[in-house]
């Protein structure tokens, strides 16, 4: 146990870069670290604010139908699914294949303690999300339901307990995925495909459950709709609800026992296989014997682009986290082509014209989700010295990074735009915006990602997840994208004004030009400040 705490302390101290900020002597680096932490805190507040909003809306609706406890179940379900996905993605990098494996394993510590400390790190990171999402729901429920006193301490205990189970399940699934693909020739590609399928699977399950809302006969009894849905998808969320709403002892025990059993199972299994799996991942296959032949010459620009491309596709986590936005975009395009009426029904939109106004903004938001640039500078990691010592201008370096986003986004937008145009048959102007607005979002958020990441880099990472998922720049870009997609969409639908699209387009173009000029002007200085 002592070993576990020592190792966990070491792990947690690097979480969110807090230790670095506390002990850093270089003022520039300290400022950078503080900025990144500040952004992270701001994003946590933004997430909390969204959770308050959703919890209040859902709580009011559930109260109306006399099923207020469902608020707890539905928020527990959403949080658990989110954590499950995060954990699957993070397993390779945090649990396996982490940078300091050799040094950690050389210490006289129990393998189980090492494995447990890594799983706990995943839990600690996930707990932040769970806390931010579940606390507002718990408070709003308490205000609306005025539960007995025991509710409050129990809620705090269950908030700590709930993220553990999806973290463990995610770690197990992630481990299986890592083991299954570690010896494959195209292991990264397989990882990307399986992770994409998993994410889509989870999305389809939630969407199909959401379709239940559309059945008017069931609206009269909300509980009938939700209870089997929550229980069917993830029973522990139902136990969470029952324990808090009715003080159900069996529900509490089920949740506690299942969590403890899975923790024990995972740690026991990892204790036996941790070193084997890590060794398997670390032992990269030897290439074929090289025979010198004529090498191909490329221009500097092309070499930088090829380098970015190789970096991008070398990380399945990077690909899944970014390309997902584009895959979602194309899937939405196909849905609108094949089943436009079902989409209208699902979104509760009465007619096609309202949807054609909305679509360009939704596609724009999806494009902003796919931007690769928000973590592309952080991904340089300890190899940044190479670019810094080379005769490469900051503009060329940044352009190559932006081109990766454009390479993924432009074909996706053209394909989706065409699918949507055929499916919805919008007027000429709406059709033009279906292409132009997502393109404007792509450029704006591609440049924004660079603009933020160069100011908030995370270069000292041991696992790619720290740069890709935990970086302040990624959070800023994702949340800014949500805001920039959501606000004009609401305005456009609410006002029906044809001016919202061109105004949004002009703002995005203006934003792109301003940020890019700023990057070109200050790029060399900012690059020099990166350590």
């Amino acid at each position, binding site marked *: 146990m002592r070993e576990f705490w020592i190792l966990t302390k070491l792990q947690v101290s690097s979480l969110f870069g807090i230790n670095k900020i506390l002990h850093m002597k270089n003022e520039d680096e300290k400022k950078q670290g503080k900025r990144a932490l500040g952004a992270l805190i701001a994003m946590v507040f933004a997430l909390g604010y969204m959770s308050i909003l959703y919890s209040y809306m859902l709580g009011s609706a559930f109260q109306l139908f006399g099923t207020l406890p469902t608020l707890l179940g539905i928020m527990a379900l959403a949080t658990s699914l989110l954590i499950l996905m995060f954990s699957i993605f993070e397993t390779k990098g945090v649990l396996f294949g982490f940078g300091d494996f050799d040094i950690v394993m050389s210490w006289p510590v129990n393998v189980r303690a090492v494995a447990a400390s890594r799983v706990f790190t995943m839990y600690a990171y996930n707990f932040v999300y769970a806390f931010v999402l579940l606390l507002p729901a718990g408070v709003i429920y308490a205000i609306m339901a005025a539960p007995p006193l025991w509710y409050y301490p129990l809620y705090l205990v269950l908030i700590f307990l709930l993220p553990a189970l999806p973290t463990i399940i995610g770690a197990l699934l992630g481990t299986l995925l890592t083991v299954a693909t570690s010896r494959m020739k195209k292991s990264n590609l397989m990882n990307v495909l399986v992770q994409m399928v998993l994410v889509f699977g989870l999305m389809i399950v939630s969407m199909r459950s959401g379709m239940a809302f559309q059945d008017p006969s069931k609206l009269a009894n909300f509980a009938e709709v939700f209870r089997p849905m929550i229980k069917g998808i993830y029973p522990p969320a139902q136990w969470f609800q029952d324990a808090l709403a009715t003080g159900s002892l069996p529900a509490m025990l089920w949740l506690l026992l299942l969590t403890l059993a899975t923790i024990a199972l995972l740690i026991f299994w990892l204790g036996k296989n941790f070193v084997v799996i890590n060794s398997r991942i670390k032992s*990269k296959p*030897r290439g074929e014997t*090289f025979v010198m032949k004529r090498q191909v*010459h*490329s221009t500097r620009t092309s070499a930088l682009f090829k380098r970015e491309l190789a970096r991008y596709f070398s990380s399945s986590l990077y690909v899944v986290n970014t390309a997902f936005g584009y895959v979602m975009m194309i899937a939405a395009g196909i849905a609108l082509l094949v089943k436009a009426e079902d989409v209208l029904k699902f979104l509760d939109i009465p007619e096609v014209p309202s949807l054609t106004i909305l679509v360009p903004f939704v596609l724009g938001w999806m494009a902003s989700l796919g931007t690769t640039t928000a973590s592309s500078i952080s991904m340089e990691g300890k190899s940044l010295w190479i670019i810094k010592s080379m*005769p490469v201008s900051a503009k060329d370096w940044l352009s190559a990074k932006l081109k990766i986003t454009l390479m993924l986004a432009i074909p996706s937008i053209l394909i989706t735009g065409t699918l949507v145009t055929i499916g919805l048959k919008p007027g000429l102007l709406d059709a033009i915006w279906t292409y132009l607005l997502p393109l404007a979002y792509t450029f704006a958020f591609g440049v924004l990602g660079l603009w933020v990441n160069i100011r908030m880099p995370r270069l000292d990472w041991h696992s790619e997840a720290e740069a890709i998922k935990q970086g302040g720049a990624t959070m800023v870009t994702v949340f800014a994208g949500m805001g920039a997609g959501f606000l004009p969409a609401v305005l456009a639908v609410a006002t029906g004004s044809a001016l919202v699209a061109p105004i949004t387009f002009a703002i995005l173009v203006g934003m792109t030009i301003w940020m890019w000029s700023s990057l070109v002007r200050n790029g060399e200085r900012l690059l020099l400040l990166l350590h």
Partner: protein
Amino acid sequence: MLTIEHLTKCYGGDVKAVDDLSLTVMPGDIYGFIGHNGAGKTTTLRAIAGILSFESGSIHVNGKSIAEDPIACKQQMAYIPDNPDLYEHLTGIQYLNFVADIYGVSAADRDERIKKYADAFEMTPRLNDLIGSCSHGMKQKIALISALIHNPKLLLLDEPFVGLDPKAAHMLKTIMAELCNSGSAFFFSTHVLEVAEKLCNKIAIIKNGKLIAAGEMDKVKGDESLETLFLELTDNA
């Protein structure tokens, strides 16, 4: 070739990592740079390489300022840090081609140099391996080949012999001598004083960021061994 005048680099406000350092490296020099851990060797090398900003002073490479015209300076230099973190997702040959492309090395020149140096360091058969699968020594060899591929005029090496096997270390010394004869210069840090004494024609000793001795090896050390001089100076200065 390289002129450093009154270079000062501070960390965290008042802490001077390098304090008013001046020295000149001429074509053909093999200039050793020694000092205890944390003396300011790496900071100086990084500042010359254009990786680190500095508060005052100037660094010129063949008359061009690293602060004002970094790209022109970098085109003439090569830098290898003490721990060469290369792109682990690339193979050795992909990395070498990338470096050659950035420095604009022609196809014919790169073929010749890759063959020459990869053979010299016995790395040719392994150039198809991912860098991530290479040992520290092999990564160091790839870093060295990449530094030599564009025939730089000034090579900045931070602890270049660490991790190299004896044969590769000998080969590096031979290559250093060969390049210096053709007009290039080396400025490198090392803790191996015997190597510095045998290999270098000039030496600089740094302590707490200040240069405490610099110049021709024979003049700096006189009749003493470099080790004796180093211990005397760093203990007493």
